[in-house]
């Protein structure tokens, strides 16, 4: 399911420090109009309902402002790439969406398929269809991977009021998916992520995504630390899951992964907000010019 990126880049402007403000002003002007659905995103998509909507989100950690009045919308069927320099708040956004406790949400709203997420525990968000592929998947010694996968799948099904899978059914599913992702039986028997290589951990994240069939998946720098073969395996896994009923947010530094998982839209994040959005060629441009224009100039003493 691919879609050509609609024209409309000219509508965008490169946001400078002042520009960002202009851009936000423009959005508010539009917010009452017909384009309101896409208010945070000047690219207009006619199809796909909104799966994720982030509105005016401000977040701090330990008193430090990380996300600053951020808006972001992702639609069903859309693969959105989120790029930006180190420290721009990309990973914090992923953690806030998934519900990590360290982050203090000051203002704003996050809706998944129209339902508010912010007051939900992380597991309830998962049951609603949110999936986060961690940048650093956590090692959990002593918990066998298979045990964990089954517990997760059935817990979600239970929360959704669905019937839990029997062990044979579950095994059938896992084995089929594991084969595609080149995950050995041995790995499934080992403790979750414990002693896995970087590539193994990332493949395990994709396996979980495939198994849990989320409505919306965030991939937080899933490409980092992968060699080209591993990257291809991971990308194939993601592409296989692209569907009109599923949205993706791919957080990355590099354009490389986007050669394999071609995005519908690219957002650039800096200083806690989206400062520019565009088509996939924006990623190419960033690769060339770097993030220099988006990094705050050093404060004048």
């Amino acid at each position: 399911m691919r879609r050509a990126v609609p024209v409309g880049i000219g509508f965008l402007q490169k946001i400078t420090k002042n520009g960002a403000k202009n851009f936000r002003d423009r959005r508010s002007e539009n917010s009452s109009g017909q384009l309101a659905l896409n208010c945070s995103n000047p690219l207009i998509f006619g199809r796909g309902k909104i799966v994720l909507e982030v509105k005016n989100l401000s977040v701090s950690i330990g008193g430090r402002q990380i996300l600053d009045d951020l808006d972001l919308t992702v639609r069903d069927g859309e693969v959105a790439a989120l790029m930006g320099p180190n420290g721009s708040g990309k990973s914090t956004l992923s953690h806030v969406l998934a519900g990590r406790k360290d982050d203090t949400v000051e203002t704003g709203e996050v809706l998944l398929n129209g339902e508010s997420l912010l007051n939900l525990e992380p597991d309830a968000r998962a049951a609603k269809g949110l999936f986060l592929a961690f940048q650093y998947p956590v090692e959990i010694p002593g918990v066998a991977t298979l045990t964990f996968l089954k517990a997760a799948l059935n817990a979600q099904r239970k929360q959704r009021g669905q019937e839990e899978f029997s062990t044979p059914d579950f095994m059938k599913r896992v084995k089929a998916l594991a084969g595609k992702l080149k995950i050995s039986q041995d790995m499934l028997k080992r403790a979750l992520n414990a002693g896995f290589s970087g590539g193994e951990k990332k493949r395990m994240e994709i396996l979980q995504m495939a198994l849990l069939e989320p409505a919306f998946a965030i991939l937080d720098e899933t490409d980092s630390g992968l060699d080209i073969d591993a990257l291809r395996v991971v990308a194939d896994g993601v592409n296989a899951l692209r569907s009109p009923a599923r949205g993706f947010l791919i957080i990355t530094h590099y354009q490389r992964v986007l050669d394999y998982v071609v995005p519908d839209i690219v957002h650039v994040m800096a200083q806690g907000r989206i400062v520019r959005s565009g088509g996939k060629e924006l990623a190419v441009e960033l690769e060339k010019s770097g993030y220099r224009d988006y990094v705050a100039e050093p404060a004048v003493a």
Partner: protein
Amino acid sequence: MNADIIPARTPAEISLARTFDAFKAGLPGNMDVTKWREASFKAFKVSGLPHRRIEAWHYTDLRALMRDALPLASFPGAATIDALRAEFAAARVPRQRIVLVDGFFVPELSDGLPEGLKVRSLASALTEGRPDLIALLSSHDLAARDPIVSLNAALMQDGVVIEVAPSTVIAEPINLVHATASPTPAAHFSRSALILGAGASLRLAESRHIANRAQPVGAGQANACLIVSLGDGAKLAHTAMATGTAPAGVRLESVMVRIGARAKFDSFALVAGIGLVRRQMFVRFEGAESEALLSGVSLLGGREHADTTLLVEHVAPGCVSRETFKYILDEEATGVFQGKIHVAPGAQKTDGKMLCKAMLLSDMAAMNNKPELEIFADDVACGHGATCGGLDIDQLFYLQTRGLPFAQAEALLLEAFAGELVDGIGHEGLIKAYRREVSAWLSARHGPTAAPSRGLIA
């Protein structure tokens, strides 16, 4: 600091002195044993019940925690034994078992013991007085004047002496069942010995059985010693289930182990559900190139207090010791771990590693951890580690993002935390049994704890 100041006797100490005076004439043993008892009680009287000013008992102030001493248990009557027989059959208590009821060896309940195993009561051994056996049974050099071991020697009523002939290999576990059947709360003092001849191999599985007819006798007081001697090349795998349902119960357990050359001692213990437990293990490598693996899990809630104290003495060279203990502490429980690796002069090439991990689940729980190294030989590789903290919130978060509700995520992590050591038992059936105990404890907890928060440190 002021260990030589003896405070006034507590009611428990006075009661113990009365008990000794009243019962000493009737306790089993020949003249030598009687002298030994007298000397032991004298030694106990000097220190009294150990208290916090005695370094080895600093964190378990028995004088404060044990307010009174219960009357001595008596040998179970025929009706009790019959009732237990029926219960064992119903509960499928495994055959190949040795049964102690309230500390007394009951041959009628014991069953299915294989060739090469000689089993008799402690009382008969003490009466017969074979010098080598008495010497082993006393083994007071191992426990270095521990007052609780002395008290046990003074008052020991019975127990079992198991001798395994050299080169005898018994694959399936020998079950040592400690049954509690006294209709009223009682104190029992038992001392048992397990002697493995050279090249013998055995698995000893200790378990607990609480008789149906018993009152809430969990509130009993047990002082049990187990003395183990491993001949050269012998192998012993030992598991102990120190569990119960007795908030008022007191269990003082001392395991003293001598290990010959090229022998292996593997031990695991689960502690749960007893008000006050102290498990002390004194392990000495007397022959070269042997190995000891000691591990244990303590699951504590309520106001329980569990203390594991180890002394591993490397006297002979080239031995390996590993001590790994884990604690889960809920509600107002207190955990204590003290482990000392001692390397004597000349015990070169010693490899000793100790680890204790404690998980606190409640704001009112406490853990005291004292791993110790005492090293008098230079060519050694010794170390210890200790960690103490709450659940890893990154792990919890990860599990929650995959859809596991908090309580389930927590249980999964705790089960994995404890399970890691349970899986090391090395016997399918026993692993299952211990896993069941751990799961049962976890599911009986009063709901999940509050979600922990991450300390924010820049």
